[in-house]
Structures are given as C-alpha cells and as structure tokens.
C-alpha cells in the first residue's frame, strides 16, 4: 500500500472518484501499469456474503444499493417526464454495475457520426474504428457472452470471449413470427457467465439480476476492483463522499475534499484526478466546485456541464397468448433485434432496438390480488392465468437537448449540506416518432403470434444518465476531449456515460468501459511522459 497520510491530507498519483463501471476499470488499468491510485467511493463495499439477504430484500421491494446516509440520494426533478433516481443508480464499490441488466452492446459505427450521416446532433471526436480494439478488451475483462449472428453489428476484430446464452422457450415463438415478418432476431450479448469465467461461476438463472446472488453477472466489485487492489498500487476508501474539487490559480485541480458519515472534511491531493461518479453526480461535483477562479464550476468554461442530460426512453408492448410461455425463469432476456438500430435514416426519428422479453405479464401474486377469487377457485385462477403474456421492450435513441439537464437545487440539501441535483428531463418528438414506429413493429410481431389484448405501456426511461459532460474537439461546444480530459483543466478527466455525445439506442456500459480503458491508457502515457 503506497498511500501516504499527512494529518488530514493524503496524497496519491491518481485520484479516482467513484468505483463503478468507469472508475473500477480505470483503477485496474492504471494500477496494473504501476501507477498509484486512490479511489474515493461514496458508498460501502457491499459484502458478497450478504447477497442472499440483499436478494431477499430486493424481492420484498427494497433497493439494497441505496445509500445508508440519510439524504445522500436526495434529488429533485422538473420537466415533462419525472426522472427519478431511486431505482436508477447504485451506490457502493461496483456502482451501477451492481444493479445493471448486464447487457453489453457495442455501439454501431453510425452512432458516432450522427451529424455526418443524418445532419442532426453532433459527431463524436472518435470513430467506431478508434474504439473497436477497446471494445474487445472490455468484453474480455467483463466476460461478455455472445455470438456474431447480428447482421447489423459493426465489424469486430475479436470473437466474444464466452458462448452466447441459448435462446429461451419464448424466443422460439418470437423467432417464428419475426421470420414471417422479415424481422431479424439474434442473440443479445451480455456480461454474464454462460460458462464459468474469470473465477466467477456460471449463471444459475436466479431471476434477480438487479441483485445477482451468484456473481455470474459482471460487476466491477468482482471483476476489476479486487484485481486492482491485488497489484498493491490501488487503494479504495469507501463511504467517503467527495464534496468538491479544489483548483489552484494555474487551473489545475490540487485536491479532492471528501468526508464520511462524521462530516469531517479531509483532503486527497494527486497529480491527476478522474471523476467517474455517473452522469448525475459527476456534473454535480463539477458545479459544486465553483470558486472565484471557476465561478461556473470546474471544467465548465463552455457552460455545458450538466447540459444535454440524455437517457433511453422505453416502452413495453405486451400481448396475451393462448399458449403457455413460461416466463420468470431468468432475470434477463436472450434475444433482440438491431434491425431498426442502425443503417437507417435518423434525421427525423431515432434508432431503436427490440428486446424480446423472457419475463413479462403479471406475477402469481398480482393475478391473485386482482382475481377477486378466494379459496380453491383462487389457486385455480392463478394457475390458469399465469404465463400467457409475451412482451417486447423497446429502447429508443434520445437526441441531446440542452433543455434536459442536471443542475444544482439550492433549496434542498443533502446529508452534507450541499445542494442536491435537479434533473430536468423530457422526451421530445424525435424520440416519440421512433417509439410510435417501434410500437407498430412490436404490435405487428405480437399479432403475428396470435396475441390478443395487445397493450403498450406508458413511456419511461432507462437507468442511463448520459451526456452531461460531453466529449468533443472544440472547448466551446464540449467539456472533455476524445481522451476524456477536461478542455480547461489539464489534470482532470471525466469518464462515464456523461461524456457521450449522442446516446445510440444501445445500452451504454460497454462503451463506457471501452472509453475508460482508452482514457486510462492515455493517462498512463501522460504520467510516464512526465
């Protein structure tokens, strides 16, 4: 352990704020190169031995990943759609990978060129080809199961490290219907062990992926942080929340001010700072770090920190079928279609992909509670009604919009007395046009299956918080460069989904991981060069 302490001030080479997907990966990538890293994590180190208890709590409707400190997760909302964070982020070593679905999709080459190809939004400052080798490394590190049967996927130079999960019973029904309609259905790649891998066991279909009881789903508390710590170069301080960053007159960050449950302020000094606290908290921390030299917050010369808050609007389309479909035997889906996610005109409406759900429809207790029956008739009703619903979930691309934002709400304070984040969010016509098309496609598939009582749920949103410190070439229109270095603070890196320029329709975590590996490589080069 190379950490040194001088009273209330510690020092390290690289300070990483957040031990989630991006922070955990960066910690390992830097530590394995012999760079001293200290990770400050606001949440606890969740004891893996307690997963069974966490699973039980999750089933009872509790979210075990929320902060234990009262008020730390507080936030306010505004806008057309109320974007809540209670079930949409996780605090602790592992961060959002503790509760993610594990879907590990690459972006498509088109996704990086929205302005060039479709005349809308912006191009990324890097291309799919630039990121492709890092995707491969991220897939190996997380253990992604898949197969190259997706005709719309962009080229890949390496095979999936794990075999794909077999299609489910209900996927078989969807496959037939999609074939008749000319819709391509293929495997859904996921960072979940289809076979034992990386010292973690094969998935046992426990059905509670929000809390994976076996560790078969990749999460950085299992895949990256222990490896980073075992190098002797990484040290993780848990239950320590960073309150602000302090910069010197030369425009470099000098220290991270942090505190634990005792609210006592400490300082960590470092040569390089990496903020990897998720799209909401990273933006908030930068805004909280305002000072006379940085009146709008650190790294916010462009005024874009917190702007362009983006997610993936969702809809579920369900239908009732006569045959039994045996849902709720896994917590994840195994088939999807990228047919509408790439190689299409995206000027007026977004891309979307279809997830063919392995679990849809009412649960036994929901059938029971709404049946009005009792006694033997009740049990019979539950038996007869269960397992006759098929569902398709649609993930839609959202365009960046300056109206959607993360700002500070000074009227409400968190545990430490800091203003909480205010999330302003709405779903615009671009996304709604894609959802309308997606609904038509999904309903068509369900009709082809002979489904009745076809319904589309209200639009909601994924647990993806993107775009709040976007990447770009110009300091006037972006916050970080293609290496995720802040334009106006040379020793500050902002990693995670906040750096996305556009959202794609795909899940963001694999792209977050690939970008984090690439940024770590860059930081190592900078430090070595220095």
């Amino acid at each position: 352990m190379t950490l040194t302490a001088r009273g209330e001030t510690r020092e390290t080479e690289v300070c990483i704020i957040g031990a989630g997907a991006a922070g955990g990966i960066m910690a390992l990538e830097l530590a394995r190169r012999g760079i001293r890293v200290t990770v400050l994590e606001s949440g606890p180190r969740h004891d893996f031995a307690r997963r069974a208890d966490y699973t039980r709590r999750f089933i009872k409707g509790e979210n075990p990943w929320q902060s234990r400190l009262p008020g730390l997760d507080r936030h306010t909302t505004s806008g057309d759609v109320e974007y809540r964070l209670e079930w949409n982020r996780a605090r602790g070593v592992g961060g959002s990978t503790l509760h993610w679905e594990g879907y590990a999709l690459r972006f498509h080459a088109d996704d990086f060129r929205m302005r060039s190809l479709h005349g809308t939004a912006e191009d990324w400052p890097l291309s799919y080809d630039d990121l492709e080798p890092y995707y491969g490394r991220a897939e190996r590190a997380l253990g992604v199961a898949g197969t190259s049967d997706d005709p719309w996927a962009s080229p890949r130079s390496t095979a999936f490290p794990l075999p794909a999960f077999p299609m489910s019973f209900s996927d078989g029904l969807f496959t037939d219907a999609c074939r008749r309609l000319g819709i391509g259905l293929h495997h859904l790649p996921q960072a979940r062990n289809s076979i034992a891998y990386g010292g973690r066991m094969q998935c046992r279909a426990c059905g509670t992926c929000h809390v994976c009881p076996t560790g078969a789903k990749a999460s950085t508390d299992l895949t990256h942080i222990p490896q980073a710590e075992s190098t002797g170069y990484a040290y993780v301080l848990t239950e320590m929340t960073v309150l602000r960053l302090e910069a010197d007159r030369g425009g470099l960050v000098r220290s991270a001010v942090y505190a634990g449950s005792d609210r006592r302020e400490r300082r960590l000094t470092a040569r390089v700072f990496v903020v990897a606290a998720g799209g909401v908290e990273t933006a908030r921390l930068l805004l909280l770090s305002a000072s006379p030299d940085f009146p709008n917050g650190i790294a916010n010369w462009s005024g874009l920190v917190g702007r362009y808050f983006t997610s993936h609007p969702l809809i579920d389309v369900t239908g009732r079928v006569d045959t039994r479909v045996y849902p709720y035997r896994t917590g994840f889906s195994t088939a999807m279609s990228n047919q509408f996610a790439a190689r299409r005109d995206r000027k007026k409406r977004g891309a979307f992909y279809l997830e063919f759900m392995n679990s849809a429809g009412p649960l036994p207790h929901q059938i029971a509670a709404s049946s009005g029956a009792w006694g033997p008739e009740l049990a019979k009703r539950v038996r007869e009604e269960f397992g006759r619903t098929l569902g398709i979930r649609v993930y839609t691309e959202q365009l960046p919009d300056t109206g959607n934002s993360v700002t500070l709400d000074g009227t409400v304070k968190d545990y430490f007395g800091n203003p909480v984040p205010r999330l302003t969010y709405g779903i615009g016509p671009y996304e709604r046009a894609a959802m309308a098309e997606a609904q038509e496609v999904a309903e068509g598939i369900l009709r082809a299956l002979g489904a009745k009582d076809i319904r589309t749920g209200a639009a909601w949103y994924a647990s993806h918080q993107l775009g709040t410190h976007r990447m770009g070439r110009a300091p006037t229109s972006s916050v970080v460069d293609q290496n995720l270095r802040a334009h106006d603070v040379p020793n500050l890196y902002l990693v995670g989904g906040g750096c996305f320029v556009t959202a794609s329709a795909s899940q963001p975590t694999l792209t977050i991981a690939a970008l984090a590996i690439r940024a770590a490589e860059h930081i190592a080069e900078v430090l070595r060069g220095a």
Partner: protein
Amino acid sequence: MYSLIVTRRRLLAVFVAAAGALLALLLLWRPARLARLTSRLFKPRLDPTTPTGSLSESELDTILAFAALLVEGRELSAEERGYLVEHVSERTAKTPGYLALYRKTAGVLDGLAAGRFRSLPFAERVNLITRHGLTRYDVRIREHLLPVRREILAVRALAVPDLIGGYYASPAGWAAVGYATFPGRCGELARYTRAEA
C-alpha cells in the same frame, strides 16, 4: 293559495331535496370524479401513526386460520403456514399500520365467532366468513356509503388482499404455477430454454 310561512319541516324538506338534486347532478355530470371523491373520503386506510410490533401467538393463529380459507380453501401445511407467518410478521414489524390492522382483524373474527375463531371447525369458519362477506375484497365504492361496519370493510379492503398477495408472492405462489425454482431461488440454467414438464 300557498302559505309563505317557512316552517322547520318545510325548510328541511327543501334542504333534503336540494342536496338530493345536487348529488344527482354530480352523479350525472362527473360520476368518476364523485366515485374518486367518495373513495378518498371513506376508503379504509392504514393508520401510519400506530406502532409497529408483533402480534400475540393467539392473534397470529387467528389470522392464519382465516388466511388458510382465503388463499387455498384448505388447511395449510407447516411450510405454507411459515410463508404467511413470515409475511405477516414482517408487515407488522416494519410497516406502521399493519399491527393495528391485523390486531383489529383478529378481533373482528373472534367477535363474529363469539369466541375463538381459530378453534372453530373448518366448515364453520368457511360459513362464517362467507356469511359476513369477508371473502369479497373488491370493495365497491358505494359500500363505503352503506351502513356496513367499518371494521369489516377494513378487513376486506386491506387485510384480505394483503394476506392473498403475501401468500402468492411467496414460494407457495410459484408452487401454484408449477415452478420449483423462481426469482430468488437459483437452479439449472438451461431450464428457461424448454417448456415446463
């Protein structure tokens, strides 16, 4: 000729007629809103100011004797009883209002039985709860306005759905649909690829 003298009786008649007309107008104009308003005003609710804690053993036995009729219509196995005990105990210990609700439910049942409900033979228990409508948990809005005992309505509207929901959310609910493994109980991975036996 009509007399213009306003008597108390006439005033009352006018008031009742006006109230009736207003109600009829409301019913015709906004029936859904009126139903919501009635429901909001009169629907039984948990009292969050009451403490959490545990039921006595006899109270719990009474609740289980009632629940067995509702959820399966037969005596429950020890395992099935265990699921209900876990559910009710967790409710009363963690969520304010449930201890009072279940205590009240046990009291109502013993009151109807004029003794110990749990000691009645199975058929008598069934007879009692059907006679008093305790199996009708889809309480209609108009029932809130009828002279039905508030305690009975609270049992029907709150306790019965909670017992049914709790039981069918447990492994017993999954057993009812033929699943030996289910969310929270891990099993063989490939099972999801085929139809259930």
